């Protein structure tokens, strides 16, 4: 028996391998740079501002002063953002998931489905300021509900922005649910709507949650739709029919101030906004993991 000589890897292949690995690492690092810098600056500038006063007082509107006890904190902004995002989520997530369910379960491969999918894609690309203007023209100018600017109108503007994100991510997730599960449920004599509610949606739940959270995070940070629809106010309000403060608008206003303490407050608000989105995400994931264990 003759031995087969195994050739060693050629120098050229070795070099190509090293270069390619290097390029991939470089790409990963370049992608990380802006993320790390953003987080670094927010933490650096924002952490110093965090205090009891920041979270427990409303902005006073004072433009002079070097202390938050004079200038006020961002309580109204936090509450306003939470309320409006909650309402926007309540509007956009059920509708978005319903659209995705129709696209995947009923309209698959049909002409109307591809038209709707195309429109959703177009909607994803619409700048947020346009949604703000749209609501301004339709709901604010016409004084629907008795007043011009109102929290719920801002929530609708944000929900329009969130809707295509929810719908598209939900569609992808629903497509991942194996057809064999649908088939076996149908073969057990289940009507289609029960297959959707009992099998498809529960199976896709973690993915639907992730997509919805992505939309929440996106919506929570938007300033433009709120400027035209909610305006801003200083006081905390639980009333969605009135003007409301919100974190992005507060940041937008504060950062333009010549008073450096107010600019610092903007950084505090930015850190709060990032932390808020993180906390919402963590809570939702926790709930999801708990509910999966029970089944």
């Amino acid at each position, binding site marked *: 028996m003759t031995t087969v000589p195994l050739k060693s890897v050629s120098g050229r292949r070795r070099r190509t391998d090293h270069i390619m690995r290097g390029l991939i690492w470089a790409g990963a690092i370049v992608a990380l740079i802006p993320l790390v810098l953003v987080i670094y600056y927010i933490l650096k500038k924002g952490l110093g501002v965090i205090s009891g006063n920041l979270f427990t007082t409303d902005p006073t509107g004072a433009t002079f002063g070097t202390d938050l006890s004079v200038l006020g904190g961002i309580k109204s902004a936090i509450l306003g953002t939470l309320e409006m995002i909650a309402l926007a989520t309540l509007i956009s997530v059920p509708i978005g998931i319903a659209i995705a369910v129709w696209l995947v379960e009923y309209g698959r491969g049909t002409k109307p489905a591809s038209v709707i999918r195309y429109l959703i894609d177009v909607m994803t690309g619409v700048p947020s300021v346009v949604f703000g203007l749209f609501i301004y023209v339709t709901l604010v100018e016409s004084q629907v509900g008795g007043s011009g600017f109102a929290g719920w109108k801002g929530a609708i503007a944000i929900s329009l922005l969130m809707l295509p994100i929810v719908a598209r991510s939900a569609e992808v997730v629903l497509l991942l649910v194996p057809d064999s*599960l649908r088939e076996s*449920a149908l073969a057990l*004599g289940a009507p289609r709507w029960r297959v959707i509610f*009992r099998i498809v949606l529960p199976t896709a739940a973690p993915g639907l949650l992730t997509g919805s959270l992505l939309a929440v995070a996106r919506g929570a940070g938007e300033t433009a739709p709120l400027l035209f629809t909610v305006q801003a106010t200083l006081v905390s309000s639980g009333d969605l029919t009135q003007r409301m403060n919100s974190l992005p608008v507060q940041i937008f206003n504060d950062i333009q101030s010549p008073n450096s303490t107010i600019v610092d407050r903007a950084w505090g608000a930015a850190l709060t906004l990032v932390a808020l989105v993180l906390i919402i995400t963590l809570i939702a994931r926790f709930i999801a993991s708990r509910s999966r264990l029970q089944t």
Partner: protein
Amino acid sequence: MTPPDETSPNRTEVVEQQDAASAAAPQATVGAPEVPTRPGEGARAGGHTISVDDLDAYYGETHAIRGVSIDYAANDVTAMIGPSGCGKSTVLRCLNRMHEEITGAYATGTVKLDDTDIYGSSIDVVAVRRSIGMVFQKPNPFPTMSVADNVSAGLRLAGVKGKHKDEVVEKSLRDAGLWEEVKERLSEPGVGLSGGQQQRLCIARTIAIQPDIILMDEPCSALDPIATLKIEELIHELKRQYTIIIVTHNMQQAARVADRTAFFWLGELIELGPTEKIFTKPDNQRTEDYVSGKFG
């Protein structure tokens, strides 16, 4: 065994049935929660037939099944064999109207469960599938459900509000030969079981809705030989209560489990006969070529 639910109108039947199960007498359609009226009700317990007459099935333009007529006898195991693409799985899927779930697919002809044409215009497709259960090629327990919930899934999916869910779960798992292995793990996820156990779980899920007929689409092709053996033993047990129609690629399996065997080729039924005859002295030359391994 769990004592029967005192409030249950079916109480006496449950007791009978449990006795009967140990005595291995043919017995079915008792003890389960009331399933809405279905075709074939009233035929003798466990003895339901399917007769197919001049069945043609299409996938869009493709004419997959050509004029198949075949009778499946009560309490028989009928195997359908043939080379890949011969249409045996399509025929099977026409028997509980799963074929039409594929976009563009349709079928013509009559398929009678006992005396009722399941393609009749007044027939509810959901009722058809409750009467004709199906086990798929790949074990596919519902991933979000526990072992017990998987078994009772059919009842809940069918909208049955049964009080004695636990009894149905236990009975079905016992009938599927899985109870002893999973009785301590009923609340664990169904997908945590081994492949063979998952497939028996799917069989338990199918018999929990008390069908008249069980269709099996290559139920062992994803399983190892030992798990396959268990399923085959289970088929022998189940045929006392059910009429079973099984599609298989494995001719040895057909020879082991089936009373009668049907050979399909190019969308046509070539030959149907007692399994022994099909494998030893078939009437048709093509059948002989196939079972002796000359093609396919």
